[in-house]
């Protein structure tokens, strides 16, 4: 995972509440067994006028000029501004993979869906929660000001607007630590292997029926 410290970028305002992960990356692209390559199909049904298919190049597809991501002023943006409950619905991690592959490293919204929120941190994306009034203000400013940029500082936990004002945000210390150092949290967990082993062996002793030995798999076969 790529470490995250500072990002300064143009901001894309996506003015819709409850943007679900089906909209972020439609189901036909979930057939891939890879982690990369989802960026061209990010928001596929809103971004293009035809239907996208896995394996079909997006070069030359008719784009929807009204969709915010297609507007020239927002090209190259790494920060997405969104409304309440962004990332709701399916747990598909293909959604943050697509956002990351497109180039987004920061998402700002008044709230995020829980699973999506967790998935972002696992992929080097920082989801920032700001209150509704502040997000409203950012929407107004980003829409009204071509070239509107924000600077995000993760170590200092602040978003700085073009007028130099810094908006503080919360992030849990563990996720922050992993993001700043680009850490693989499986590696961190495996440092506690001895504790896991002790827990598991006690659980096996106390509640043996929780564990299903291999031979039990033959039970219930009928065909």
């Amino acid at each position, binding site marked *: 995972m790529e470490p995250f410290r500072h990002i300064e970028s143009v901001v894309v305002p996506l003015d*819709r*509440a*409850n943007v679900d992960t*089906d*909209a972020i990356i*439609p*189901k036909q692209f*979930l*057939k*891939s*067994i*890879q*982690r990369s390559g989802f960026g061209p199909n990010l928001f596929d*049904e809103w971004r293009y006028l035809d*239907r996208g298919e*896995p*394996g079909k190049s997006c070069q030359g597809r008719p784009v929807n000029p009204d969709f915010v991501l297609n507007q020239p002023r927002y090209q190259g943006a790494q920060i997405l501004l969104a*409304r309440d*409950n962004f990332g*709701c*619905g*399916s*747990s*598909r*991690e293909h959604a*943050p993979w697509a956002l990351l592959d497109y180039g987004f490293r920061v998402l700002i919204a008044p*709230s995020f*869906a*829980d*699973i999506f929120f*967790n*998935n972002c941190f*696992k*992929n080097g994306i920082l989801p920032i929660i700001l209150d509704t009034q502040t997000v409203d203000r950012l929407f107004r400013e980003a829409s009204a000001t071509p070239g509107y940029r924000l600077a995000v500082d993760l170590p200092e936990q602040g978003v700085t607007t073009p007028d130099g004002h810094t908006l503080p945000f919360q992030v*849990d*210390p*563990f996720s922050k630590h992993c993001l700043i150092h680009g850490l*693989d*949290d*499986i590696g*961190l*967990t*495996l440092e*506690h*292997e001895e*504790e*896991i082993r002790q*827990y598991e062996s006690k*659980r096996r002793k106390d*509640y*043996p*029926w*929780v564990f*299903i*030995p*291999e031979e*039990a798999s033959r039970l*219930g*076969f009928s*065909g």
Partner: protein
Amino acid sequence: MSAKTLFAKIWDAHQIRQDADGTALLYIDRHLVHEVTSPQAFEGLRLNRRTVRTPEATFAVPDHNVPTRDLAQGIQDPVSRLQVETLENNCREFGIRIFGMGDPRQGVVHVIAPEQGLILPGLTVVCGDSHTATHGAFGTLAFGIGTSEVEHVLATQTLTQKRPKTMRLTLTNTLGPGVTSKDLVLYLIGQIGTAGATGHAIEFAGEAIRALSMEGRMTVCNMAIEAGARAGMVGVDDHTIDYLANRPYAPKGKDWIEAVIHWRHYVSDPGAVFDRELTLDASAIEPQVSWGTSPEMMAPISGQIPDPDTMADPVRQSSARKALAYMGLQAGTRITDIPIDKVFIGSCTNGRIEDLRAAAQVVKDRKVASSIKLALVVPGSGLVKRQAEEEGLDQIFITAGFEWREPGCSMCLAMNNDVLSPGERCASTSNRNFEGRQGAGSRTHLASPAMAAAAAIHGHFVDVRRL
């Protein structure tokens, strides 16, 4: 000892360690895997030269991509086939049990796991699928995870998690005749919204929940995620124990007796304190139908499509306008005046035997309306299908003009060939009415199996209580 919630009992019993900032390392008892969200996790293990730590805790099944007819020909779509084969290969390589294609037990992961007795009270259960909340019906803590977390569970049998808050939804009185668990949960989502329970584990309680069968409770918990909840759960009672008796993977003999005594403990203690409490009267709930593109856009069958102009919140107003434009509907239209093109009965929400019985009861001795282009019944599992056939339900559906298919996720998310065409309007027993969910440009109306069946017969929504 102070009174504890059901949630706290399970969480505390699974916490291996806790960091100073409250991040917990939780032990995971049961891990369910399907073909769509797992390939990258297995690939991650290989790249990092890791193994599956506790293979006996993980069970796999292909469901999202599988065709629902002509199974003898195998999967025709090469991309889908590769994904299903990848799951089979990964399971073989890492020693994981799989209910593969051709296994009579194969079906939707959230239908087959309880059916096999894999879901037991007091367990932690995870799956790379948001509808994992289903399994909370058994007094378990069950929640959906992303692929990175799937990899984490495979490698460590644990997850690092923040403790969610708790919320109790108490449903007083009982549901009226013709009103089902699906209507109950759709109504709840309509009331609290799709972010109404974000950050919370919901416990469903009260007389109306106690009266539900395990199938009904699974339907309710299944859609807890649609209210934004991390998990949905129901305390253990006789229904739970009766359901589990003699299931293939449930404990047997002396283990069973000890387990049942232990399981009775998985209820919230009297006086346990929740972060939030909400009480609703179940007897006031009517059959529900969604009108928009979010599961919170819900109306009773006696109602009409709301007018965005009357909504106070500008964001809601704009969402409702976009939804009506997408759905091709007008404010003020009565729900019973919405014509339907296709009907889908199935999914992890409503693909169980009780659901098929409820739909068949409506369909019996009637015919699908001539205006309906396709009416599909997709059983949730091979065993549900077999049981329905033993009861003659398949013949009721086929005689009425329904297609009777093989098990899988099918048109709930339309990853296989069961896809709506642009603009088509579907009465669906599934869980999401998002834009494009059942196919690009598709229009989904969520409803109960009985309501979807009645819409198939009449060509538009009708109040199933008046049939």
